[in-house]
């Protein structure tokens, strides 16, 4: 049977398993259309807040020698209301709306803004490592995670994903709390808190000093997390962290992910990376005689 790239992440069905990760290129519907045409199965928006955020001053990104990026863009975004107006005309592109906030009401209020929009899923950013009072600071508080997930699930019928990362609370506990509270899927992981110092000028390079490490250096860590989550819990997983080739994508499927997200690879290989990975996945499936993505998911756990 000819293989296809269709995948299901719990209630979310996508024609292709490679998505744009949150925080990357995510502020224009025109760009979303272009990414979708280029092979992205879905696009995750920048994390939206209740009000517009300018983000941090530059430098907001640093290229690590040996591979990877450290960014502290500071969750700059036009705010949920402005963003919802922009994507209202969208009919074609599966858009996953990423939300960031401090209290359950922030999320509830933002979801109301998207009532007229075609939203494939919401992704709750519980793991941004470089902005105070949101992201990891929320993800590290189990009570708050419980309240937010419960509130969001009561506010919408659209599937809800929690994006977890490496904070002070063990991410497996955060995943457990999110599952108990009714989450539909997990994205793992976010960037990892990091920094860079210039030896000539003897200063931290990023204006925020700390940022999130992404790209190839974190791939083995992200892969381990996906494997651990899928070993412990029965929950659909989206793998994210350092994926840049089709082999990386397959590794995440084998570890238990039903879909993947990428971002840094765009900085290295530009938008063509979606098509390259899709093509590679299909060739691998033909070679191994798989007809659908699901056939591969979690296979590495058997051994």
């Amino acid at each position, binding site marked *: 049977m000819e293989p296809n790239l269709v995948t299901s992440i719990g209630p979310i069905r996508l024609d292709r398993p490679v998505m744009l990760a949150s925080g*990357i*290129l*995510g*502020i*224009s519907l*025109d*760009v979303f*259309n*272009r990414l979708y045409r280029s092979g992205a199965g879905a696009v995750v928006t*920048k994390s939206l807040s209740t009000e*517009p*955020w*300018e*983000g941090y*001053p*530059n*430098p*907001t*990104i*640093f*290229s690590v*020698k040996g591979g990877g*990026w450290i*960014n502290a*863009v500071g969750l*700059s*975004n*036009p*705010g949920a209301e*402005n963003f919802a107006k*922009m994507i209202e005309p969208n009919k074609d592109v599966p858009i996953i709306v990423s939300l960031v906030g401090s209290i359950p009401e922030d999320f509830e209020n933002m979801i109301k803004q998207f009532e007229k929009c075609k939203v494939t899923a919401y992704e709750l950013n519980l793991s941004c490592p470089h902005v105070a009072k949101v992201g990891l600071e929320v993800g590290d508080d189990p009570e708050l995670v419980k309240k937010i997930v419960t509130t969001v699930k009561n506010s919408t019928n659209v599937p809800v994903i929690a994006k977890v990362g490496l904070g002070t609370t063990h991410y497996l506990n955060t995943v457990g709390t999110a599952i108990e509270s009714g989450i539909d899927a997990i994205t793992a992981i976010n960037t990892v808190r990091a920094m860079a110092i*210039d030896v*000539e*000028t003897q*200063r931290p*390079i990023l*204006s925020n000093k700390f940022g999130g490490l992404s790209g190839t250096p974190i791939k083995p860590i992200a892969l381990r997390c996906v494997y651990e989550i899928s070993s412990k819990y029965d929950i659909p997983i989206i793998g994210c962290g350092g994926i840049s080739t089709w082999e990386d994508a397959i590794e995440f499927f084998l570890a238990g992910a039903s879909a993947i997200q990428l*971002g*840094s690879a*765009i*900085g290295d290989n*530009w*938008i063509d990376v979606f098509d390259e990975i899709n093509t590679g996945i299909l060739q691998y499936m033909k070679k191994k005689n798989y007809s659908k993505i699901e056939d591969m998911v979690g296979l590495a756990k058997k051994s």
Partner: protein
Amino acid sequence: MQRNHNHTTIVTVEKVIDETPTVRTLIFSDEVMSNVLPGQFAMVWIPGINELPMSVMISNESGKAAFTVRKHGAASTGLFNVQVGQQIGIRGPYGNSFDLKEGKLLLVGGGTGLVPMMRLLIHVKPTDDVTVLIGAKSKDEVFFEDLANRLLENNVHKVIVSTDDGSYGEKGFVTDLVEKHLSQAKYDAVYVCGPEIMMYKTVQSAHSRGIFVQASLERMMKCGVGICGSCCIGEDLVCKDGTVFDGEHLSKNKEFGNFHRNKAGILENY
């Protein structure tokens, strides 16, 4: 080993030239930046202050490059105030460059948008007939007129300045001069860089006449490498697809000349 253009290289400013009361050129040694193509840019880190995208300016000394900056916001004022001996970080070059046509060329530059035009002038052929139009607000703000004449001394050429207030050169907007020149003679190519409304009008004037035209765009830029998305214009990313776009492409872009994005990514009218 070849340098990775994404890694920050620290250089020392060796010379500062005051072009006008608000515009300075900072010269430094760097082999990679000394060879960039017209239209390409670098991300320039002013330690402790900010990082901003800058067109790379020519220098007449081998192995040296420069940035020409107008003090405006905190970041550009920070770069403007850099003294001889201070260090700045550079990464790049990023972006594409102008397609170099031959024949009768019209180059249009407003303010520091003249920088890529000067870089383009070092690539013109001795046989090219080149007209450079320089737009400035007033006499005080005119710069690079002598440099343009010097770079074109072996060509048939004209360098014409217009000031908004008429205090030097011709009075009025440089776009009026563009319209006048394009209606009077047949040009093979038009190149423009400057404020977006100026580029929009220039592109319209040329494209509507079927003349090849390219503009080097400027947008809010954070990463420079196609990740942050803040420099998008329609479905294009200025850092990766540009900075140079041709008139055919721009005439279909509904944001060009109409909207720009602020730091939060909200579209605002020009």
